[in-house]
């Protein structure tokens, strides 16, 4: 039975729309994951060498052992932030003729399939073979490996248990963090040294492998505790967190803009109330600091100033680049509704322009502090900003009319490639590289300031032609409206 359930999970992973959409993305993701695991494994093999180098002449087994508890403290925090509870997946089975304890056992086994459970094995097992086995014999190495396995199981189920508890009462969350902070403080003031207790415990274990019973007991106890807790709490409604009261909001200042203002308010709420677009807002904030990477003394000395256009476009246009990737797709859940309600297409497209102009302008003003590094940067950013609101905004809306892939707003942002397709790749390139077609020859053969003036000037001219663009874009959108609608309906 449990095997059947696991095979369902396997299918759900491969058949989820998210995974199944594009082979290329799957391959890229697979490569990234394989690369990460290989790096960790390589690190595991490199430990003996590295430790010998950093601590010459010392007992490297003792040193490695002193790090194990630190590793698990890190592991606990990592799990707490990234490991998801595999609870919803039981929903379709609760009503079927499957004993509860089997479902619970399934949940527990399912929880073991997590990359965090592989990492300690990759890190420590090579070391056990290379260093511990020669020094302490096979029994010592076996005890060490078993201890690592069961400590991982312990950590896995302890955190799942605590996470489930925090769902029911947030006191558990506070307690958890208080404990972590307490350990850090005690360790910092040398009251209770994690490193020392770690090396002592493991060296003891190596000389008396029978002590491995302690981690085994811990691991099994954590498993059983989780099992018992789940058995008593396998009800649908109890897994749901108490929701905070949601209140209505109005942006009265947007009212003056009429229908477009109303549509902008809709976009703002969309960004603030859904995980994935919220993540993009955070990205905008982070990328404001991007200038520090490129606005360096050496780059400022370069007479052509090639890089500043790219940086400026990125900084003032990060919102257009990122949010614009899915400009219409963000609304895919209810696009049918939008398109059949009383919203004229010109107003819809104009609202997108206004949103772009507003956010880019805010970013431009906020990042004007780079002018303190050099006045030149203020000019290059001005040109980039004008180009963004004048031309990139148009390109963005134009490409949005070619995007037929829906976005599910309820999904979180990390490693979420839903809705990503060829258009998205073309999109980023078009926005960032296209201006260089004008800029590069001018900057190279005439004068960089002329080049910046040309880019900024073109942006300004295009901005003044916005009404004309709106007409063209409406016509373009009409041509593909049904394709967009059909694509968005397919979830």
């Amino acid at each position, binding site marked *: 039975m449990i095997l059947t359930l696991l095979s369902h999970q396997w299918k759900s992973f491969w058949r989820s729309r998210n995974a199944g959409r594009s082979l290329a993305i799957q391959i890229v993701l697979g490569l990234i994951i394989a690369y990460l695991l290989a790096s960790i494994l390589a690190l595991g093999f490199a430990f003996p060498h590295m430790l010998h180098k950093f601590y010459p002449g010392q007992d490297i087994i003792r040193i490695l052992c002193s790090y194990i508890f630190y590793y698990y403290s890190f592991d606990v925090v990592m799990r707490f932030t990234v490991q998801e509870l595999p609870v919803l997946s039981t929903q379709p089975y609760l009503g079927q003729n499957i004993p509860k304890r089997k479902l619970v056992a399934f949940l527990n086994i399912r929880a073991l399939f997590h990359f965090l459970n592989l990492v300690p094995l990759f890190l420590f097992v090579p070391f056990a073979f290379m260093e511990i086995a020669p020094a302490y014999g096979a029994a010592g190495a076996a005890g060490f490996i078993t201890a690592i396995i069961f400590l991982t199981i312990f950590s896995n189920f302890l955190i799942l248990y605590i996470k489930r508890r925090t769902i029911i009462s947030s006191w558990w969350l506070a307690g958890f963090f208080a404990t972590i902070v307490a350990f850090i403080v005690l360790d910092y003031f040398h009251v209770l040294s994690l490193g020392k207790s770690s090396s002592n415990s493991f060296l003891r274990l190596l000389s008396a492998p029978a002590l491995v019973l302690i981690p085994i007991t811990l691991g099994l106890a954590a498993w059983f505790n989780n099992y018992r807790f789940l058995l008593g709490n396998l009800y649908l409604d109890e897994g749901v967190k108490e*929701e905070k*009261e*949601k*209140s*209505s*909001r*109005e942006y009265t200042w947007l009212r003056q803009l009429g*229908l477009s203002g*109303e549509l902008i*308010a*809709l976009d703002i*709420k*969309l960004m603030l*109330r*859904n995980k994935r677009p919220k993540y993009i807002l955070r990205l905008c904030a982070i990328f404001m600091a991007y200038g520090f990477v490129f606005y360096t003394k050496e780059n400022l000395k370069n007479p052509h100033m090639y890089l500043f256009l790219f940086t400026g476009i990125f900084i003032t246009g990060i919102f257009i680049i990122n949010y614009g990737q899915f400009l219409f797709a963000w609304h895919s*859940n*209810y*696009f*049918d*509704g939008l*398109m*059949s*309600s*009383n*919203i*004229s*297409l010109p107003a819809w497209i104009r609202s997108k322009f206004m949103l772009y102009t507003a956010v880019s302008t805010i970013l431009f003003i906020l990042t004007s502090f780079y002018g303190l590094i050099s006045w030149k940067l203020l000019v290059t950013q001005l040109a980039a900003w004008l180009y963004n609101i004048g031309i990139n905004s148009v390109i963005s809306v134009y490409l949005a009319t070619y995007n037929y892939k829906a976005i599910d*707003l*309820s999904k979180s942002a990390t490693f979420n490639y839903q809705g990503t397709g060829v258009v998205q790749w073309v999109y980023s390139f078009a926005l960032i590289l296209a201006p260089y077609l004008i800029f590069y020859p001018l900057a190279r053969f005439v004068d960089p300031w002329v080049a910046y003036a040309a880019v900024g000037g073109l942006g300004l001219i295009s901005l003044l032609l916005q009404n004309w663009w709106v007409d063209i874009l409406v016509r373009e959108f009409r041509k593909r409206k*049904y394709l967009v*609608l*059909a694509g968005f*309906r397919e979830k």
Partner: protein
Amino acid sequence: MLSIIDTVKSYNGNTVVNIPQLDIPTGEIIGLVGNNGAGKTTLFRLLLDLIRADKGEILSKEKNVAATEDWKKYTAAYLDEGFLINYLTPEEYFYFIGKLHQLSKADVDEFLQYFEAFFDGSILNSGKYIRDLSKGNQFKVGIAACLLQKPELLILDEPFANLDPSSQMRLVRMLKELPAQQRVTVLISSHDLNHVTEVCHRILLMEKGRIIKDIDTTADTLQELESYFEV
């Protein structure tokens, strides 16, 4: 109000809608019945210009819905949750829809008073986003948003399916009163033959994309329909 002329829509060689001629005069309540896959929802989507017809045209007030946007001003529709903006609170959604029809906040609030009983205290000021409401309550939000627009043409897909019995009866009453007050043309689809025959003046029976029966509702209509659906 509506004329459907020689309209065909097919997917991968399967004809899902095929209507040579259909006229719907103003103020009528039309019920669309038929088993799953008969083409009811597809027909609605054609009326709302959400899909393109392979052939033919659909005229709303003599204007082709695919060529102009005039129909949006007087048409309100609720086909599924895909018409609700689910991260808004119900109030925000109503104000948004109201705004699209030049209704002020006060107008919307006043209008919503009529829905107090229909909402049954679980929609307004519920402290939830629409996505957190139950399906039935989501549907209530959708239908109230439609009526809020004071439409001349109202399109509802299976309005009775997700509602509790009291709400079904309230909805029946509301629909029956509509044309008398405001000359509204109503198109609803439903699997509930009782409600449909009670509300509608005229019933269209669809099968595999065709309208195979066009009946003016009389006392015998329910029986006639039941005998068709009998297996």
